[in-house]
């Protein structure tokens, strides 16, 4: 029984990682860059939703919508101002810029909202008794959200014209341009989707943690990035698998081994996995015909 409840916590924590990992993986797949500021967009989403509930007195769903809106715009603006001018630059320049944007967001948040933690009221509270277990509603909401998002994104990339254009861009930007696809616009759209997901992840994460500070997004961001690599970066199902596995490993490690060591164990699993499967669990390798 105890094991089962740790497992459920793990799956719901993992679902948050999966939603964040999607943002990393989509941006990596298309722009071929690691957007280290992604975790901090989560934090911004958390603050916007919290402040719209507390300061503006909006209902929680309006707060969530506002957070999605602000983060989407923020993501597109970051891409346009910081990354787009570096499109032709070496990838190291883009990586350093992303780290810079990450610190910028953290410090801007500190300036705006202070460095001390604020308490966050979960969007849903209470729990559902199932047999001898009690599953918190926020866990259920998170898992359902994750499944819905995953399904929607898969349908989008498989079935729609823009989704297919995204896949084309992720394979070969030059060839995509020759098809008449506007690559810059496709990259902006990817950032918009990733950042909207970050806002949702922010709300869910803060509802779990019930607190929020300017560095809230950075550790989950790094873990979700780990999850994306673990599952196979660039792959949408890989982000789901990596995220959920990571959440379970973390939750079980905390429960049965040591809370302090949990993070080390998570990253150790990543290292071992990559030694065995360098492309991640679901990473694609398509041989090229010459």
């Amino acid at each position, binding site marked *: 029984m105890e094991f089962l409840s740790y497992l459920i916590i793990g799956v719901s924590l993992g679902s948050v990682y999966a939603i964040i990992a999607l943002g990393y993986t989509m941006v990596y797949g298309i722009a071929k860059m690691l957007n280290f500021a992604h975790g901090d967009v989560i934090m911004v989403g958390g603050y916007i939703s919290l402040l719209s509930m507390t300061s503006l007195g909006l209902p929680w769903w309006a707060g969530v919508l506002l957070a999605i809106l602000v983060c989407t715009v923020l993501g597109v603006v970051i891409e346009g101002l910081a990354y787009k001018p570096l499109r032709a630059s070496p990838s190291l320049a883009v990586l350093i810029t992303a780290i810079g944007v990450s610190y910028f967001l953290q410090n801007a948040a500190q300036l705006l909202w202070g460095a001390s933690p604020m308490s966050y009221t979960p969007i849903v509270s209470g729990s559902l008794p199932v047999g001898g277990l009690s599953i918190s509603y926020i866990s259920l909401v998170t898992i359902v959200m994750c499944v819905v998002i995953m399904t929607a994104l898969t349908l989008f990339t498989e079935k729609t014209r823009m989704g297919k254009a995204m896949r084309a861009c992720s394979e070969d930007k030059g060839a995509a*341009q020759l098809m008449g696809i506007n690559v810059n616009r496709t990259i902006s759209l990817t950032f918009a989707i990733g950042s909207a997901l970050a806002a949702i992840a922010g709300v869910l994460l803060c509802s779990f943690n019930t607190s929020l500070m300017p560095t809230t997004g950075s550790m989950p961001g790094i873990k979700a990035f780990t999850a994306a690599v673990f599952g196979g970066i660039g792959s949408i199902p890989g982000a789901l698998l990596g995220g959920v596995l990571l959440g379970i490993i973390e939750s079980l490690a905390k429960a049965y081994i040591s809370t302090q060591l949990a993070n080390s164990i998570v990253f150790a699993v990543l290292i071992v996995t990559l030694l065995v499967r360098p492309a991640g669990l679901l990473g694609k390798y398509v041989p090229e015909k010459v």
Partner: protein
Amino acid sequence: MEHLLKVENINVYYGAIHAIKDVSFHVDAGEVVTLIGANGAGKSTTLQTISGLLRSRSGGIEFNGESIGRLPPHRIVERGLAQVPEGRRIFLQMSVQENLEMGAFTRRGGVSEEELERVFEQFPRLKERRRQIAGTLSGGEQQMLAIGRALMSRPQLLMLDEPSMGLAPILVEQIFEIIGKLHRSGTTILLVEQNAQMALSVADRAYVMETGRIGLSGTGRELAESDLVKKAYLGG
């Protein structure tokens, strides 16, 4: 009569390297024109400049009387200019049909079955394999897919960059048969080739490129019979 494509004194640089020097030529509607020349002569660079992937520092490119030299690549495709890139560059992880759909990206309405059927008529092999992932096709099939994909945009001018590269002789024959067929059905073609003999056999007119400049030009037959071209490109 106005030329369909008019390239006038373009100059293209890779950093400090002056890759294309004052290149001018034209293509008229209905023609097959070929650019031949050795590896590194600037043929592909010229095509990429017309497509907008590279920029010319000076000179101009006109298509249908409109200047396209400053347009981004996707705007150029919208105007009816399609390119089959060197090395095919099909989307290996997408299905054959999805590749063809991408070729029709500029037509917002989506792709009708008739549209696909038109390409499948030219390339029956692709019809058999329409659900297959493009990466599993043979080299020749991939080249056919690359050509079919470009035709999906219903281009007024089709530019082919080294379509015979890396293919077995029998497949090279097949590709050139297809080019001939497209020509007879009224498609205007600009063909870049290292295989000068094959290229000259299908071309109405040809330009010879050498280290970034256009040297000789003439009809396909004139050049095929010219001593200079024979010696340099046709092996005797």
